[in-house]
């Protein structure tokens, strides 16, 4: 309850900040629509040359595009703005004030900034997922949909955990302000099913920077390709990575000694 009220307060501040830039918001939406058009065009070019891509049809790739955009929104609306703020606060020492507040530091670092207009992206992503499933023609089983939802959530948690570890490294290496670029860089691999990639690339996006765990894997659950044991294993990976990440964060905060004093 307390956490929800805090998120409400954060949201209010961020809405007020974004209201100062109304025209920019409209332009951002238009540019965003342009890229969506571009993404759909590239899918249509691919499928005018082939019937399936690695066994996946157009509907399934549209749904995958939706999941990809979901993760992309997570990056653009939360991860990027908060990373920027966090890096600056460790460098100039204003992280002190954050630690003084009676709220979990990780919670504050994660949710203080929100790019409000990205809510639009969230809605679009959901539309793409639903439309994609509809287009794919195969009747989605309730078990498949349930597996999809929980694995998409746990995949997002895996990405979020990796982010925590990457920014926590700032406590050890203050000048490490490129920390999340690697996440953003490999994100583009999430547009297509990891199964079409050569083995080395598949290994990277599954185990090292697990973009595929958040994009391809939920779709595989929807297609009914994953056994219940596999679904459970991926959920366990999600939970474990969050636990590990919060431990790293705790150690990092303990190392932090301020910049001003």
């Amino acid at each position, binding site marked *: 309850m307390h956490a929800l009220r805090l998120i409400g307060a954060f949201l209010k501040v961020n809405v007020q900040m974004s209201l100062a830039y109304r*025209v*920019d918001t409209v*332009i*951002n939406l238009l*540019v965003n629509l*342009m*890229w969506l058009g*571009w993404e759909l*065009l*590239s899918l*249509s*070019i*691919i499928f*005018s*040359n*082939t019937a399936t*891509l*690695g066994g996946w049809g157009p509907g399934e790739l549209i749904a995958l595009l939706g999941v990809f955009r979901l993760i992309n929104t997570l990056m653009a609306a939360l991860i990027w703005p908060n990373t920027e703020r966090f890096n600056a606060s460790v460098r100039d020492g204003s992280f002190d004030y954050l630690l003084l507040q009676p709220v979990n530091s990780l919670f504050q670092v994660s949710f203080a900034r929100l790019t409000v207009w990205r809510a639009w992206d969230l809605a679009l992503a959901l539309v793409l997922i639903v439309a994609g499933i509809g287009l794919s023609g195969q009747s989605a089983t309730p078990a498949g949909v349930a597996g999809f939802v929980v694995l998409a959530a746990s995949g997002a948690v895996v990405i979020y955990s990796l982010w925590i570890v990457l920014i926590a490294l700032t406590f050890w290496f203050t000048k490490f302000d*490129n920390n999340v*670029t*690697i996440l*953003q*860089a*490999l994100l*583009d*691999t999430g*547009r*297509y099913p990891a199964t*079409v*990639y*050569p083995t*080395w*690339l598949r290994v990277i996006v599954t185990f090292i920077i697990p973009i595929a765990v958040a994009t391809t894997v939920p779709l595989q659950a929807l297609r009914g390709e994953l056994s219940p044991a596999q679904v459970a294993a991926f959920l366990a990976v999600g939970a474990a990575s969050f636990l590990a990440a919060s431990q790293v964060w705790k150690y990092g905060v303990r190392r932090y000694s301020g910049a001003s004093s």
Partner: protein
Amino acid sequence: MLRIFQRLWQVNWAEQWQYRANLVMYLLYWLVSPVVYLAVWTAIADAQGSVNGLTANDFVTYYMTLLIVDQLTSEITIHIFGYKIQDGTLSGELIRPVHPILTNTLVNNVAFKALTLLALIPVWLALGLLFRPDFGSVTLVNVLLAAPAVALGFAVSFLLGAALTCVAFWSTRVWSLYELYAGLVVLFSGQFVPLTLMPAPVQAAAQFLPFQLFKYIPIQIILGRLTPAEIITSYLSGVVWLAAAALLFRAVWSAGVKRFSAVGA
């Protein structure tokens, strides 16, 4: 003049070298999308033998060449010059007796390229080992024929990028405009797929736009996929676009500089 460029080179090379960690990250960021499309299209071509006459090897060589050509013809003017207009640091450069964009910014672009290419070499060789391209169609003559096309592509892209950056004299929303422009480049330059796979209207429009000079044309010349007649037409259209881009840049720059009132200085 040569001495000026020499000195600017030293300064800008040192400046770019300072940010080498950022540069590696940038390289990684920029590399992923072509490699993804390479993987996607070779998977399709492998599955059905060929796509529209293009074999898997045709795709591998196309994207591997794209990595180099894209690096050579791209420009970063908005990133290194845009803020100078907005925060007023441009005034210091305006006092100097040389054109700020055609000297300092140009050399900074080139220094950035040189350093990125240096970092690209090992990555490119590694990709070569992983994808095993057969560059049998590339001859020395092709490369020599393509070299001026690459230079032309960079000149046009640099001038258009610089003209666009100068919109910052009027509006702070120049970044959104630039993103729109980047979208056009992706669509019409052959960055996503060889243009021959694009829908017919896109291909037709690309003929009348400068963007294929940036990537598609130099790549096709290097790979020996253009007839002599096509090469000549490409060069002619390249020269026309160079003149148009130069005129556009001159007009925007001189109008913009008159408006400039050195904010904060």
